[in-house]
């Protein structure tokens, strides 16, 4: 935000941090950046390679395919898929991780949205599904999807993230894996639904009620307890995901959405909301989502997915093709509110430059950050660090590990040594352009 002086003629871009991080204003003036990159020599030679004379390609010489009712992606994009932890459907949880390193912007397309199913995907007939609100209310009520369609709705961008996302970073050694493997249990979508407060008001909340216990229509009837305060704040019964009805794996035909809060609490297939004066201590709050601390104690009710960011490009799985200009891109979000700023370092945290945030910056939603960068071909360590509007900073790894600990053994990348990791992710790039996951 500081140096806003005009540079109308000089073809140069200010270096804002070590190892070639450029001022974010370069993103608005790419021509100048490339002019600058040309002066580095090797990159100049690459970008200056002469183009071939143009002729028509085969697909330009006749009519294409017939228009389908439901669009499919280009088959050239077949590799952009989720990765499955349990593809054969063994009697265990099935995780599908979103390919965040292959996506841009802030919206996760519905077929690629991460899902975790503990007992498979129920095949719910939307006309038969019901939602009841009962317990400490004046009048228990039943809602059908048809009824809910007549209620006032809101549309908001929100991320959903598993409390166990990024768990591989609790490993004492950095696991060599993509953003998809490390952080793919997180996604962001535009959700449309009915504010839960309207439905609770209609049922008439007993002033002594303090919690709501939401339960799904899945085989395990997964249930979680949420403070009523959150239920009356920004919770919604979501019916639409990116403009269409929810994906079956994301809770079709309706789910509880608790913006910014631990994924498992966002009850999918929600069929029952019971108001109580105490938490139910369901299995998932009693055990799974109460993370252990190094001294043997454990956190209880770790509701919020705290401020986090990671660079998606370049990242593990990519390689840099020689020195020159690159565009660093990543995702930041906070369960507390809006992302305030993201800093990027190319020297392992010695110096930092402020990244450009792609607006609009929505609360409790993915925010895309970008940073122009001119790589000189020397080894670097790329990192990002986010702050949210409440002033929370993404913790540095040393501080985070001092508080939360790390694994004694090197876990499987699909394992969950602990949960609620929100420290930094570092990518080490060597002089050949190879990218490794490192700790810094």
């Amino acid at each position, binding site marked *: 935000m500081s140096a806003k002086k005009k540079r109308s003629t000089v073809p140069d871009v200010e270096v804002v941090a070590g190892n070639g991080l450029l001022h974010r204003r370069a993103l608005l003036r790419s021509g100048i950046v490339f002019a600058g990159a040309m002066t580095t020599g090797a990159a100049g030679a690459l970008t200056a390679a002469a183009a071939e004379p143009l002729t028509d390609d085969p697909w330009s010489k006749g009519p294409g395919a017939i228009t389908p009712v439901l669009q499919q992606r280009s088959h050239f994009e077949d590799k952009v898929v989720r990765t499955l932890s349990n593809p054969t459907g063994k009697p265990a949880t099935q995780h599908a991780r979103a390919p965040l390193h292959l996506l841009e912007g802030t919206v996760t397309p519905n077929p690629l949205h991460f899902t975790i199913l503990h007992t498979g995907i129920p095949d719910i007939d939307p006309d038969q599904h019901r939602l009841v609100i009962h317990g400490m209310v004046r009048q*228990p009520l039943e809602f059908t999807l048809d009824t809910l369609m007549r209620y*006032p709705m809101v549309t908001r961008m929100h991320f959903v993230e598993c409390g166990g996302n990024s768990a591989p970073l609790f490993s004492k050694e950095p696991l060599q894996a993509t953003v998809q493997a490390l952080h793919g249990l997180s996604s962001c979508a535009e959700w449309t639904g009915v504010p839960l407060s309207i439905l609770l008001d209609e049922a008439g909340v007993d002033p002594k009620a303090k919690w709501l*216990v939401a339960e799904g229509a899945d085989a395990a009837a997964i249930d979680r307890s949420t403070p009523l305060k959150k239920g009356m704040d920004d919770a919604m019964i979501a019916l639409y995901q990116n403009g269409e009805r929810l994906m079956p794996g994301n809770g079709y035909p309706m789910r509880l959405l608790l913006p910014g809060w631990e994924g498992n609490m966002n009850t999918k297939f929600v069929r029952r909301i019971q108001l109580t004066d105490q938490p139910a201590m*369901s*299995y998932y709050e009693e055990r799974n989502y109460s993370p252990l601390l190094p001294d043997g104690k454990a956190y209880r009710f770790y509701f*919020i997915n705290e401020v986090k960011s990671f660079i998606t490009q370049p990242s593990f799985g990519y390689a840099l093709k020689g020195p020159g200009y690159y565009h660093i891109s990543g995702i930041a979000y906070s369960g507390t509110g809006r992302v305030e700023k993201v800093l990027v370092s190319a020297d392992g945290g010695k110096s930092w430059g402020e990244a450009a945030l792609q607006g609009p910056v929505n609360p409790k939603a993915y925010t895309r950050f970008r940073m122009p960068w001119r790589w000189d071909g020397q080894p670097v360590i790329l990192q990002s660090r986010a702050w949210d509007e409440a002033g929370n900073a993404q913790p540095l790894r040393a501080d985070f590990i001092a508080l939360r600990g790390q694994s004694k053994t090197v876990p499987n990348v699909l394992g969950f040594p602990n949960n609620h990791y929100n420290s930094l992710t570092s990518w080490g790039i060597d002089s050949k352009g190879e990218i490794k996951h490192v700790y810094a």
Partner: protein
Amino acid sequence: MSTHRLKALAAALLLTLAAAPSGRAADTPGLGKPISEADIKGWNITILPDGTNLPAGSGSPAQGAAIFAQKCAGCHGEAGKGGSARMLVGGGSLVAGGIEAEKTIANFWADPTTLFDYIRRAMPWPQPRSLSNEEVYSLCAYIFSLNKFIGENDTMDAQTLPKVKLPNKGNFIIKFPGQI
């Protein structure tokens, strides 16, 4: 806003209030269908830590052992250990195990009611909610007895189960107390 529009708004508000069914908040559509707690009973399986909603019935460790061998041991192992699913008996030191220690009923859980609730709700994996309340009490008695939280002849019912003491109770730190 003009006086005319304010008057119109006030009139609309009065109409809404007048039209709202008695006992309902006036500012909601009022389309929820009243249902009785009795009609929700078939779905209302949540057991609260103070024992609220525990059903009638009881079970002993011996009864539980027979049911366990038949319906649970396939995944959880004979006597609750060594199976493909989580161990139900014993557990290492949480301090020695570090942050990735296996969290078990013995070393981690705090609320005995969670065991009844979860077994009845979600187990056995392929046939959730197929066990009778007697069977669930029996399995709880068996598992608590194997962990030495109750005696071999103690039975579990709506009165005794919530009183079972689990050793790790009290080792939890509320992460976001301000949110509750």
